[in-house]
């Protein structure tokens, strides 16, 4: 059962769980902003840029 769970974790989340968490937070923020008059579409492109850079920097920093 544990191996089954690990398989799905690895299949979906991969080797950097922070990316999945960052995307989940960004989608939540987008959903919140979408109920207001603010331009909510800007959140996801910015989140993608930030999450990707942070993940890359972790590797580049060693």
């Amino acid at each position: 059962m544990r191996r089954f769970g690990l398989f799905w974790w690895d299949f979906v989340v991969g080797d950097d769980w922070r990316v999945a968490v960052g995307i989940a937070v960004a989608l939540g923020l987008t959903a919140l902003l979408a109920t207001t008059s603010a331009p909510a579409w800007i959140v996801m492109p910015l989140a993608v840029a930030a999450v990707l850079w942070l993940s890359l920097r972790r590797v580049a920093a060693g």
Partner: protein
Amino acid sequence: MGVTRGWRAALAGTIAASAVLAVIVAALGPALTVIPIEVLRLVVGALLLVFGLQWLRKAILRASGWRALRDEDSVFEREAAAGRTAASEEHAGLDWYGFTVSFKGVLLEGLEVAFIVLTFGSTQGSIPLAIAGAAAAVVLVVIAGIVVRGPLSRVPENTLAFAVGVMLTTFGTFWGAEGAGVDWPGGDASLPLVLAFVVLLSLGYVSALRRRRLALA
């Protein structure tokens, strides 16, 4: 597996995994069509983004020199050596190592493809069209393989991974935001702009990481 452990177990593993995949697709395909489109786009967008960013991250690290480019020849040699030295154990008249490795490989890669085809099809309202696109891609790859008659090492793997990462991230960003309640300025016409953004962003990161690597060298 076919070359190192024998074709019987390898083909049996491939056929068994294909059958499991067919069952999963047959069960998931109709189920996806009854889920509200906003929920589907949110979930699919999130998953595509997580998959896409993993692909993109690895491709950017390889392109900028922070990770070694995948060498298909050495991967083949390593896997073949592992296959030759693995212990021999028979179940149901089959070499169990050859069967399970083939089964696992086909099922895992197939699941990823099935997920992409089903989700793209269902979010755009035409699973048969998505399946036709996937089938066309298979035919093209087979034709390219016959025309080129070269080993897999000739395939520009990192370029392909980069392109797949960019596409998954683009669609993930677009559908994820739509599923969260966003109306993109210009509707579907903004999709090419999101694509351009992801491409420029990725190339910018490759350039920045390359400079950083050279500065540290």
